[in-house]
């Protein structure tokens, strides 16, 4: 059921499956989820949820010293039939998909001024994606984005993050019954950007949520996808890939909260790292609550370390409060691309850079092929190629 292997390359892979009477995911948090930043103590770095994050690089997002005033544009392009609104904090549609789980998310929630709400009416099946282009021109910003799908609606949302920013945000995805939503979130920031964001999905009855998180850029990116179910029969697939370069900190902290019976979740994140000080963190918390009978869940994280000096921390954590489940498992492994592999490929005439690219592309392609949406897959592979062309 569980597999945790580790090739030590300055990495840790700790895996646990706890059969718990009470959730330790909850007890590990320094405060219960809350919309109010005042409910969270200022982290000092030793807390479970902050111990991997270099606080000094958060530019004050965590301790209240970061002041909004930056330039950040959010441009939404949506096909006909979709409503795009900019609303006040008081709008009832905000904050329904999940509650901030850490201080920075709460800070974002306490500080944003206007939110953007994108609504797809019930039964609308979009043939074109909704595009949300988030572009920073420097400075600090707090944001809130809502994407709502009515019952049986189907949509693909592509969120692109580019430029430079210190951004803390929450994104809500609310899926009506039987709705199908695919979200591709690409973090293609400049090397100076800081991006801390919580992605909340509330999956309706028989709805399916697919998330594809792609993190290439930024000085520090810390994303916390949270999935909860509003009814039985919901499905969530969370895919992620990251390419962590020298000096970058990229952290993905997932929490799938099986709070409802007969729901599924499947998590697969893969990362490649290269260069001094490249640091990737992956936390996969899956909680199967006592009520969530018939749950089927699997989570996987794989890392490929291309050079010395990079570090991976990978922590899958599965908590099961009911024995009446269909399946639950996790796997985490960190391997390295070493000199022997390089020699082998080069001895077949392949140049060193191409050998590296070949390995990384193949490693990611395996994941991309699981997404099941040809145009998204194609775009991603092209993106990976461009990233590899530029950096490997």
């Amino acid at each position, binding site marked *: 059921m569980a597999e945790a292997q580790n090739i030590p390359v300055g990495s840790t892979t700790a895996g646990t499956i706890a059969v718990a009477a009470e959730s330790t995911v909850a007890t590990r948090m320094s405060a219960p989820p809350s919309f109010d930043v005042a409910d969270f103590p200022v982290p000092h770095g030793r807390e479970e949820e902050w111990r991997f994050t270099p606080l000094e690089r958060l530019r004050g997002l965590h301790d209240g010293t970061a002041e909004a005033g930056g330039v950040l544009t959010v441009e939404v392009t949506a096909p006909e039939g979709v409503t795009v609104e900019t609303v006040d904090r008081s709008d009832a549609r905000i904050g329904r998909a999940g509650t901030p789980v850490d201080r920075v998310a709460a800070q974002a929630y306490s500080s944003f001024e206007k939110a953007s709400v994108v609504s797809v009416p019930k039964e609308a099946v979009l043939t074109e994606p909704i595009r949300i282009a988030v572009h920073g021109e420097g400075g600090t910003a707090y944001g809130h984005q809502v994407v709502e799908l009515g019952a049986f609606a189907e949509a693909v949302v592509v969120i692109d993050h580019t430029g430079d920013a210190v951004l803390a945000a929450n994104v809500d995805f609310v899926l009506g019954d039987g709705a199908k939503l695919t979200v591709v979130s690409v973090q293609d920031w400049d090397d100076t950007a800081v991006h801390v964001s919580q992605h909340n999905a509330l999956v309706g009855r028989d709805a399916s949520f697919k998330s594809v998180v792609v993190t290439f850029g930024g000085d520090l990116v810390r994303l916390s996808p949270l999935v909860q179910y509003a009814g039985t029969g919901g499905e969530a697939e969370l895919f992620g890939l990251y390419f962590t370069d020298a000096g970058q900190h990229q952290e993905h902290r997932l929490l799938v909260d099986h709070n409802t019976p007969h729901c599924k979740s499947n998590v697969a994140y893969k990362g490649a790292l290269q260069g001094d000080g490249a640091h990737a963190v992956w936390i996969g918390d899956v909680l199967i609550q006592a009520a969530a009978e018939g749950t089927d869940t699997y989570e996987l994280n794989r890392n*490929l370390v291309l050079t010395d000096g990079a570090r991976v921390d990978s922590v899958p954590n599965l908590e099961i409060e009911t024995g009446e489940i269909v399946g639950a498992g996790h796997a985490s492994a960190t*391997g390295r691309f070493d*000199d*022997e*592999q390089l*020699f*082998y*490929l*080069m*001895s*077949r*005439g*392949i*140049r*060193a850079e*191409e050998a590296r690219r*070949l*390995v*990384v*592309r*193949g*490693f*990611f392609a*395996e994941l991309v092929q699981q997404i099941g949406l040809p145009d998204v897959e194609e775009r991603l592979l092209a993106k990976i190629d461009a990233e590899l062309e530029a950096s490997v």
Partner: protein
Amino acid sequence: MATLEIRDLHVSVEADNSTKEILKGVDLTVKQGETHAIMGPNGSGKSTLAYSIAGHPKYTITSGTVTLDGEDVLEMSVDERARAGMFLAMQYPVEVPGVSVSNFLRTSATAIRGEAPKLRTWVKEVKTAMETLQMDPAFAERNVNEGFSGGEKKRHEILQLELLKPKIAILDETDSGLDVDALRQVSEGVNRVHASGEVGTLLITHYTRILRYIKPDFVHVFAKGKIVASGGPELADELEAEGYEKYTKGGVTA
């Protein structure tokens, strides 16, 4: 005609902060179309010779020369050597996670041939080569050497030999770990490549068994870091009957 010339090659490795000389003056000439068998006991330096010619970074050439048609091989990077026409079938082929066999083969064929092979003929070429080596087509989609059995790894090496068509092929114990059927299929592969007349083969082996299938023109005995005796196929028969003892006991001169 392509010629590989190895002259007075000395090679050492760094081990535990000390330098250890492994090759102590190897002389050998291999011409296109010829098959040379190098036979020697464990630890005599056969793989070191193979890796040094291929350019493995672990081995330091302290003196001597290796040339291919007069070009200095030792000056070339590992990939340049391969593109110049050298091929090493490794004793222990390396697993490469994330890279499928089909992608790997195509990428290396593109590198060696200088252009991407035409897709349609390529697919057929690979399929045919795999069939003759009795490799399941499913291998094309697996990651390079990952989870392959010893025999499967060796077949995969010979598959590459057939597709890349080098001028000089060094086969390092391609026979070890193979059962009789696999040995025959792999040998047939080597013989097919040889039959083209365009490859010079350096067959490194510990056992005479493979020489029932592959007929060498020359046999060399390798001991303590150099070639200590050279002859025709009859030398292999002598080794079969008497073993390496005569060559490994001190005081032997080449």
